[in-house]
């Protein structure tokens, strides 16, 4: 930090600047609403102090129109800011389709990140500026919350489900990253660094980072070594749903409902296979809950996603 006390945290995105503008405008409004109260209390306390002569004729004890006006007018002004903030909030929930996905697994007390190219890092997150990045996050134990103050964003990270957070950083630099949801003993040490790099620097960083294979390739490796291919692979004899072209498509379920084959559905199908059974298949898939951790599941997901453009093989 530069000064003794900085009033604004560093800004690393357009969204951060918009949130700051919203806050400044809204603060101006609430000051305008409250200053008359503070000023009048002081003025009245001085002017109408007990024992002091003053014009006290015709004191008002009620005035419905006055009361309705000071209930309604501030409310309408505030509603304007509500709409503005709602629009920014909706943006946060609508990641662009071409966003680069980074998988995040939180566990007491560290942050693990996996890039699509297979690069992995702990408590440091490198991203390129000017590129939309989507974090798909889950927790291995309790609830955590990924907080990047310079982007003015935060999202809880839950066990058993995926939550997402997206942003476009526009200023290179090193910024704080922290867990904001109390997660036990060493909560306040669950901190890290958010590093926004220029595109060239980021490409260099990716190249220098140790990686044997891409995330999808690592997923294909698990797919074979853990025996998934025995049923879902092309040579399998078991009647199991084909995974080619599956990702993002509707899946008819036993019982008539239709699920979408998104990250959550595929994760649950691996770890909690009995919760949603695809129509027309016997419920024989075993759970991999005690075999695979969340990072491995993320790799498998990357592999299954990479099959999305392939066409299903002959039904088995």
């Amino acid at each position: 930090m530069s000064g003794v006390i900085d009033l604004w945290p560093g800004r690393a995105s357009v969204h951060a600047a918009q949130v700051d503008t919203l806050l400044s405008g809204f603060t101006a409004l609430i000051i305008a609403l409250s200053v008359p109260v503070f000023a009048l209390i002081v003025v009245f306390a001085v002017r109408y102090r007990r024992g002091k002569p003053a014009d006290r004729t015709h004191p008002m004890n009620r005035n419905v129109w006055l009361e309705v006006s000071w209930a309604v007018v501030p409310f309408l002004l505030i509603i304007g800011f509500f709409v503005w903030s709602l629009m920014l909030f909706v943006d946060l929930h609508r990641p662009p389709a071409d966003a680069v996905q980074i998988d995040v697994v939180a566990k007491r007390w560290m942050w693990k990140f996996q890039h699509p190219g297979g690069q992995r890092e702990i408590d440091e997150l490198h991203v390129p500026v000017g590129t939309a990045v989507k974090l798909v996050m889950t927790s291995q134990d309790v609830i955590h919350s990924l907080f990047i103050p310079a982007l003015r964003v935060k999202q809880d990270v839950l066990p058993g489900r995926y939550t997402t957070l997206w942003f476009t950083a526009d200023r290179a630099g090193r910024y704080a990253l922290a867990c904001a949801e109390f997660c036990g003993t060493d909560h306040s040490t669950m901190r890290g660094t958010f590093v926004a790099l220029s595109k060239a620097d980021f490409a260099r960083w990716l190249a220098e980072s140790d990686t044997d294979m891409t995330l999808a390739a690592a997923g294909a490796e698990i797919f074979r070594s853990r025996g998934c291919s025995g049923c879902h692979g092309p040579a399998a004899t078991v009647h199991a749903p084909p995974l080619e072209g599956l990702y993002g498509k509707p899946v008819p379920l036993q019982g008539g409902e239709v699920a979408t084959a998104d990250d959550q559905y595929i994760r649950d199908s691996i770890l909690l296979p009995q919760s949603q059974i695809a129509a027309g298949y016997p419920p024989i898939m075993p759970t991999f809950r005690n075999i695979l951790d969340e990072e491995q599941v993320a790799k498998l997901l990357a592999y299954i996603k990479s099959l999305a453009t392939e066409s299903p093989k002959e039904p088995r």
Partner: protein
Amino acid sequence: MTVSRSAPDDRSIEMGAGISEKTVAETAEERISYLRAGHTLRSWFFTTDHKRIALLYLVSVTFFFFIGGAAAALMRADLLTPEGDLLSNEGYNRAFTLHGVIMVWFFLIPSIPNVFGNFLLPLMIGARDLAFPRLNLISWYVYMVGGLFTVFILITGGVDTGWTFYTPLSSMFANGNVVLAATAIFVVGFSSIMTGLNFIVTVHTLRAPGMTWGRLPLFVWSHYATSIILVLATPVLTISLVLIAAERLFGIGIFDPALGGDPLLYQHLFWFYSHPAVYIMVLPALGVTSELVAAAARKPVFGYWFVAASSIAIALVGFLVWGHHMFVSGQSMYASAVFSFLSLVVAVPSGIKVYNWTATLYKGHISLDPPFLFAMGFIGLFVVGGLTGLILAMLAVDVHVHDTYFVVAHFHYIMVGGTVSAFFGALHYWWPKITGRRYSIVWGSLSAVFIFLGFNLTFFPQFLLGYLGMPRRYHVYDPGFQVLHVLSSAGATILGVAYLLPFAYLFYSLRNGEPAGPNPWGATGLEWTVASPPPKHNFETIPVVTRPPYDYEIEQESDAG
């Protein structure tokens, strides 16, 4: 005088709950003050007199206030350095959990209702006691059993989940005395329910003749609204705690996804209670402030019906805003939008109260005695707390400041700046009624000013810390935050001294204060028509009310210059 005394009639004899028959001999006894009616321990610990039970509560909540305050002092000392040299990580977590649990359930929730509500509700509506005097005594014992559990937890090492007990941390991972803490809160919840029920029945059935709903003091309206929340919300908390214990003890999967549960379900249940609980803490304070402002200005509260109805509106709408604690939890975006909107709606009745209090002062006869100073301090801090609450209701801003010091500062402005200031205001306003003695106006004014200044120095820097990105519940932090933390700790020192100050001069007044007389402030209200301290059964004959509340016209005419 707002009251004319009538001869005893059949009705007045029936009114006194708990005293079924009244004989001539007892009438003489009634004139003895409630403090002198019996000197044995038994006469205190088995009393059914609402005024004595109020004093039992006053001593107990003060005890817990200082235990909770000691935990806060430890935390503020620890936060002086970014490394957190004083406490271990575990020790810090236990300190803030204890601070939260004790302050919320053993101080803030019972503070004003169980002390001043208990003491004043019957006096204000012209009754001889609450509707169920024995239930009132039981509720104190239940509170103490819960309190003893808490003290036991304290001795045996504490609990480290935060007062929110979020799952699955609390149910599967935390290593402190979670089940014991849940039991303590479970038990104290029943005390809340009993008190709420007692107040509701009392207001409905024991109002003196002529004490119509439109003549109820606003203090009574706000306690009525509080009681509705106590009775409707507390059982939900009780259920949630039982579910946590079931998961922790027996591994029944309710909240932990590894057992097939849903962690967000707990947050919905918890905040369905705990957001209304914020209004349990602040509504009584709003009622106190209405009384203090009217008495200080010697004027009726501006817009009585708006102020009374706003208490009820806060109690009802307050049940519909819990999701604003969950904007970044993974809750649906559409749900968040609705909860954000409703959170702005619930601010409207609070705004009405503040504007109406200000209007009450217009053309008043304003006294700057300690109760008024505390009331003004309350309004100032409550306004800052309320308006920063609106900032938190703004979705895009909340995403940034949620779970940071901004939130910590906001709710301390409401609960400590607001409720504790009102608690001290009530103590200074009704102390002469409760004890029969006057205290030093100079010292009272000083403590009001120091509490206001110390509070702001403690908590205003925390708004800045929060926006800068300092997460709450952090024991070690980025060194860039240290200056603001040191300011905050310095303020806490002033605040701590200011909270201790009233002890000295109030205790001194018990022996050395001048007798107060029945109505030292020249205020309206039935409590000021009886002796100070009031006689054991409050009213020799049940009063008949013939005038509206806050009827200061007579005095106004006499000194309108």
